[in-house]
Structure formats: C-alpha cells, structure tokens
C-alpha cells in the first residue's frame, strides 16, 4: 500500500500546490500514541497502537485495536471501509482521506489540532515501576489464592469423598490428594494407585495396622503370640518399619526402630535369653552357632534331636550323621573308579540346589550314589541288586533270589510260564524236600546278607551294628542316617545369589575332608570377607534383614488391637497382663 501522508500545504510550485508530506510504502498503516507507529498522535487518550488502515482489493479498511472507537465522519466505528472524503477523528487529530487514486495510491491528510511538539511527549511515559501500576499486593493475593485452591481445596474435595473424588483422582493433570504424597508408593503397593483412603482411614490419625492386615492376614509375629515377650511390641505399628512414601522406596526401613533397639542388649529385656546381642554384622554380631542333628537311641528307634553348637565353632563341632563319607576320596584329582572308567567329580555332581535355587536339595542314594555304588551281591549279575533303605526288603529279596535258584536247580526244564493246575500235579516236592529247600535258601541268604552288610557293600557307607544274642536276619541293624540340612534355621542364605563364587571359597577345604563328621560350614569371618556392617562402604553393606526375618513362621498371626474387645484379650500392641 502506498500512502501519501500530507501534514500541510506549503504553497505552489510551478502552478501546482506543494505539501509537507511523507510517502510511505507499507503493508499496514499503524496509528497510535507509540513512537513506533507510522502516524504518531501524541495524545494521552490514545493507545500506543490504536488503529490500523490496510488496503485489500483496492478498498481501505480501518480496524480499531483499542477499546476506544474511532469516529468516522463523527460516527464511532471499530471497523470501517474508508472512502474518499471520510474524516477520522483520532484523539485530537483529524485524518482525512483526500483521495484514493486509480493506481491505488492513497492520499491522507493529517491535522494535529495542537501542534504542541514539546519535551512533554516522552514525559507522559512511566519512569518508575510504581507509575506503571505495578503492585505487590494483587500478585501476592493471586499467588496465595492459587496455591490454596490448587493444593488445598481440590485435594480436600478428593479427601472428603465428594462426587468429584473419582474424576479428580483420575484426571492426569488435575490436582488431587496425590499432590500431598511426599513420595511414591513402593512398587509392591502400586496396585493401590491413587486411593489414599485404602490405607489412610481417620483424618489426622495414623495408618492403622488393620489396613495392612486386610491384605496381609497371615503375617506372623516375631515372638510366639502367647508369650509374654509380646509385650515388648506394645505401641509398635507395621508402619514403623514398613515406611511408605519415602525415597528411596524400601519395603523394610532399617531406621532407629530397627532390630538393634532390642537385640543390641537383649539381656536387659530378658536376663535368661539364650540369644546373644547383635548390633551390626560388621562389628557386633556373635559368631555363628549351628543347629546340628544328633542321633539318640530310644529303645529300638533312633530319635534325632537338634543341638545348638557353641558359638564360634570352638571346640570344633562334629556331625554325627551315621554316614561314612570322605570328600577327599571322592574329589580325587585323578578321578575315582566308576562303571565308565575313572571319573573326576565336581561338587555340583552331587550337591544340587532345589527348584528355587536358594537352598541345597538333599543327596539321594538312588540319584547320586547308585551309579557307582551298586548293591549287587553277585558282582557279575546285575539282577542280584538288592533294594536300598529297608533291611526287611533286602532280606526278602535275598530269600526270593535263592528260592528261585533252588527251584531252577531241581526242575531244570521248568519254565517260568509253567503253572500248577488244580489237581493237575500231585506233589512237586515232598515235605522233606521243602524243609531242605528252606534250610538251603535261608543259609545262602544269610551268607549273602553277611557279605553285603559286614564286608562289602552296606558297610562302606553305613554303620552296621551286630546285636548280641540274636541270630538270623534280626542280628543286624543299620544305623539311621540323617544329614543336617538346615544348619542355621534362623538365617536365610541364598545359594543362587552366591552362584558366581566357588563352593570351596566359602566351604573351605571341603575337598580335603576325610570324614563325614567334619563340619564344613563357613564361619562368620568367611562371610565378613565380603559382607560388612550396614554402614560399610568398603564391603557389601549388609543389614539384619539381608539374612534375618522379623516375621517368623509358626509364631502366630498378628492381629490389630482394634479388632479385639475387652481388657483380658492379649493383643499385639496392648501390653501383657
């Protein structure tokens, strides 16, 4: 748009009038009080950018940007199409459309009614922040109200179970009481989602144990539920140890309310406790003691009792499993005789973990030993193997074997398929022959049994006792075998977590052990070579819960005190009478 902006007539030059004018070539003609407006009108009533004039398809369009309209031919307008002869009153100035020529050039005449060009023009602008109308109070109120509405009012509406609760909690960007969460829920509790009231019951009240027990009803106590020691737990809450909304998120928090609060000085609580104090695995933990199985004879039976060894393996504990076994022989570096030639054995050939990988599965004769240790009483006849584990079955097997041998000898042509038919045959054997057969069978069976039990097979691994004054099969007893499987029943050890280590790095010199009485369990020093106390930096920081559990099996379920009524009922939190 080309505009000739005339501000006055100067006179005539060569018969044509001469004007004070500026020729502009702009897309839009800007009008206002501001210094950056093409037509600047110094009038305080006008906006900085008050109006624009633009040419579209040959027509002049006036657009008023400010609230105050512009008078076109003395009629206030906010939008207008300007024609030749229109007079615009803008503030104290008048703008006349003198001509819109054929070639599109627009001729405007500007009359600034007051020609007051003085230094007062810039003086109108604000020169201090206060003059711009900036105030602290409105901003303060807006911030305070904004904070209160977003972080107090909306969360309270969610908390009060208003109809808005669901929509507030589900809205991703809408503030709800989730805004009050100091930290995230533990991954195990993520399914609770944003439902604060699932755990938080009474307002301004602490989370009750009932909330936990609702979902975890079988949680066991630390001490037997009926024992007086339960009084020690009075006032304790689930949330004391299971701290939620904390970072980093941990299911069990080992803060000051931890195990050490009691186990640091147990004698103070119970002078007769057999337990030793523990404060820290690295610096204040008793040496290990083991739960060893000990056989004890009660009449003709063996009863296995658990005996705790003294702490620290001194004197060196011995296991009495009634098994004869030498690790050294089996772990011979040149290999050991087997049906397929000499074979080098590794620990894992016999010691395998259970399905969980955490603990060791028991070693079974049939699975681990029988390939080499055959139970044949005739080394050349594989059908002569006797069953393992029950002497009576073994004797029966022997008797059956020798009876068959006898029968095969006196009736050489007899085939196993021959059957006696009722009345078909009279007598195969006379009574005398029967007696002789029984005598022979028994004699041979006893001979074979003696060979197996006392000389060759059973005795290699088992302790066989000959009972005085008895004859026949009753004269032998093979002592019960039981290998300790749970050496430290109160500690949880995970073999899977230690899989990257060599067996002998913890079970030191296990391959050198000559006797099954050797206890090959590692002592605390062995563990401490990698595990340190809970604040250790040089070694793996290990707190109590790495090996021990608070909730012990068989102690009885934790109940919430609120579920009980009456003073006589012993509850978890209330004291013991």
């Amino acid at each position, binding site marked *: 748009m080309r505009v000739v902006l005339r501000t006055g007539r100067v006179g005539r030059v060569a018969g044509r009038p001469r004007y004070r004018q500026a020729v502009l070539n702009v897309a839009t003609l800007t009008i206002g009080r501001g210094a950056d407006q093409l037509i600047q009108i110094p009038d305080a009533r006008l906006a900085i950018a008050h109006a624009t004039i633009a040419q579209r398809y040959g027509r002049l369009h006036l657009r008023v940007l400010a609230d105050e309209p512009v008078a076109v031919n003395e009629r206030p307008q906010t939008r207008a199409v300007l024609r030749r002869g229109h007079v615009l009153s803008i503030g104290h100035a008048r703008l006349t459309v003198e001509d819109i020529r054929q070639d599109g050039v627009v001729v405007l005449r500007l009359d600034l009614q007051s020609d007051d060009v003085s230094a007062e023009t810039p003086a109108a602008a*604000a020169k201090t922040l206060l003059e711009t109308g900036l105030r602290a109070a409105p901003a303060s109120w807006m911030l305070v109200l904004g904070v209160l509405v977003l972080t107090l009012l909306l969360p309270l509406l969610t908390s009060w179970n208003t109809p808005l609760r669901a929509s507030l909690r589900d809205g991703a960007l809408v503030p709800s009481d989730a805004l009050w969460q100091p930290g995230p829920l533990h991954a195990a509790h993520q399914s609770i989602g944003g439902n604060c009231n699932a755990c938080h019951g009474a307002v301004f009240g602490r989370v009750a144990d009932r909330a936990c027990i609702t979902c975890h009803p079988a949680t066991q106590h630390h001490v037997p539920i009926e024992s007086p020691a339960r009084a020690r737990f009075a006032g304790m809450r689930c949330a004391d140890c299971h701290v939620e909304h904390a970072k980093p998120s941990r299911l069990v928090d080992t803060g000051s309310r931890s195990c050490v609060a009691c186990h640091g000085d147990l004698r103070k609580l119970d002078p007769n406790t057999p337990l030793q104090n523990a404060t820290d695995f690295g610096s204040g933990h008793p040496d290990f003691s083991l739960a060893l199985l000990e056989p004890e004879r009660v009449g003709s039976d063996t009863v296995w009792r658990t005996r705790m060894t003294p702490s620290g393996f001194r004197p060196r504990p011995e296991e009495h499993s009634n098994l004869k076994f030498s690790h050294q022989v089996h772990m011979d570096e040149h290999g050991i005789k087997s049906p397929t030639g000499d074979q080098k054995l590794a620990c894992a050939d016999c010691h395998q973990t259970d399905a969980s990988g955490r603990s060791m599965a028991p070693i079974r004769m049939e699975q681990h030993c029988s390939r080499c240790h055959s139970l044949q009483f005739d080394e050349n006849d594989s059908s002569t193997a006797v069953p393992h584990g029950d002497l009576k079955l073994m004797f029966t097997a022997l008797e059956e074997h020798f009876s068959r041998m006898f029968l095969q000898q006196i009736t050489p042509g007899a085939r196993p398929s021959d059957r006696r038919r009722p009345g078909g045959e009279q007598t195969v054997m006379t009574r005398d022959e029967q007696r002789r057969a029984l005598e022979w069978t028994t004699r041979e069976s006893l001979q074979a049994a003696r060979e197996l039990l006392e000389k060759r097979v059973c005795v290699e691994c088992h302790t066989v006792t000959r009972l005085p004054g008895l004859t026949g099969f009753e004269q032998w007893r093979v002592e019960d075998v039981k290998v300790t499987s749970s050496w430290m029943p109160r500690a949880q050890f995970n073999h899977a977590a230690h899989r990257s280590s060599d067996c002998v790095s913890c079970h030191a010199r296990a391959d050198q052990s000559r006797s099954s009485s050797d206890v090959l369990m590692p002592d605390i020093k062995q563990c401490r070579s990698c595990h340190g106390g809970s604040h250790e930096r040089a070694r793996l920081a290990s707190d109590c819960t790495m090996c021990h559990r608070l909730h012990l099996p068989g102690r009885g379920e934790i109940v919430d005190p609120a579920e009980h009524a009456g003073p006589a009922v012993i509850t978890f939190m209330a004291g013991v009478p």
Partner: protein
Amino acid sequence: MHQSFLNIQRYRYALYAGLLGAACTVSYVVDSWHERPAGDTVLGYTLGGIAAALVLFLMSYGIRRRSFHARAGATKRWLSMHVYLGVCVVLVATLHSGLQFGWNVHTLAYGLLCTVVLSGCWGVYAYIRYPTLIARERGAVSREELLRRLAEADAQALAVSAGLDLEVRDLIADAIRRTRLGGTVWAQLRGRDESMLLLVPIRAPGYSQLVSNRGQQALIAQLAQYQTTTWDTRAQHRLHQLLQISGDKAVVLRRLQRDIQIQGLMQFWLYLHVPLSFGMLAALAVHILSVFYYR
C-alpha cells in the same frame, strides 16, 4: 569502616545464622548414620519446626519494617538478621527435606522458599551494587535535573530549527515526538533506547521509512546529510547547532534511561520477593496441614 546492614556489629547475625546452620548440619550428619534422612523422623520434625519458626520470623520483618516506632539502627539490625537467617532457612529446609523431592505440595513449598530467598539475594546485591552504579551514571545530578535538561534540549532544537526548511523542522519535531523514555515494566528494566524516526528522503522522490533512532543516531546522520547538501552558510550554522544539541540530548537520554533501568532493577526484586513469600507461606501452611492430615 562503614556499617552496612551486612557487617553490622561485626557480622554478629552472620555468626548466629552460621552457628544455627552448622548445628543443624552436624545433627543431620550424625542422625543420618542410623536414620533415613526424612522430614518425619525426630530430627526431621525438629528441623521442620526450626524452619517454620524462621519463616514466620522472616515474614514478620515486613511488619516491623513499617513500624512507626522503629529506630533507624534497629531497622538495620533487623535487616541484617533477615538477610542472614533467610540464607540459613534454605539450609535448614533442605536438611528437613532429606533431599526427597517430587511433584507435590511439599516440594512446591520448598521451591517457593528457594525462589523467595534467591529474589532476596538479588535484593541484597541490588542494595550493595546499584547505589554506586546510580551515582556513577547520574553523578550528583538528580533525575529531575536531567529531565529538565532534556526538555531544554528539545526546546532549543525546535527554536533553532524554526529558521530552517520545513523538512528539517518536521524531522526535528518527529524525532522529539518519537523519543522514548521509560514506559512499561519491561521497557524500563530493559533500558534500551527504543526511539524511532520517520525518515523522509532529502529533496528527492522516494518512500519515507520508520527507523530506529537509538542514541539519536538516525537524526544526527540525517542532519549531517542536510548539512552537506546545503550551501547556505546560515543554514549550515543552524544545522551544526542542531547536531550539537542532538548529541547532548543523546547523552542526557542515555543517562536517564540507565537511571530508570537501575532504579527499576533496584525495586523490581521486591515485586518478586513479596508475592512469592506470601505464596510460599500458603504452600508451607498446606504442607504442614497435609502432612498431619494423612499421617
């Protein structure tokens, strides 16, 4: 040595705040040996209580400052306390948080506290730095005097240009009208010379253009061009005068703009500090309420 609010009574309040901060830090370090650092432990509640008390004390400065009975010396001491304890409260609040932050009202309160203290630090900087700057920019001359000189320069320019061509008169008038000083908050703080000038081609056909007249540069260039195209010695003399006046005006204008900018900066931090501190107080109240609401 001049006693400012910072070194009053030999940094006594810096010492107090430092001791409080050190005591809190030591307790935190000792406690974190056995306790997970958090706001809900015994130490956490203690630190939270101290921080809340500090916040209330700091907020009360606004009331005491306005107190009719306040003596100048006492106000200075209160300001000193306000500044040092304000820095200290960030430390105490950080220890109270146990460095557990998240998208929640608790971190909002902490974040607002930090911005309040940061804006306060800007205020301290402003009070130390800007008075010297103002003195350097303005000298002993007051703003009113500078404005008077500006008006004088404009009046002189108009008077001198009266005897010149119409184009020059229009040019001078336009330059005066389009001279900008102050304005919106942003314009004041930015301190840029936004003056404009509508340049009309000299004695030749062509389009007029609206250009920046920063430092009256466009005007001076245009006047110089008029001078080279004029043979009239009287006109040349007047143009020379106009050039001198425009140069002087540019200097005065620049000093005024710097003065407005620095004065603005010196006050503006308070427009952040006060509203943010009230917002922080609201967030702090919600923080305390919500923590006990869902325990």
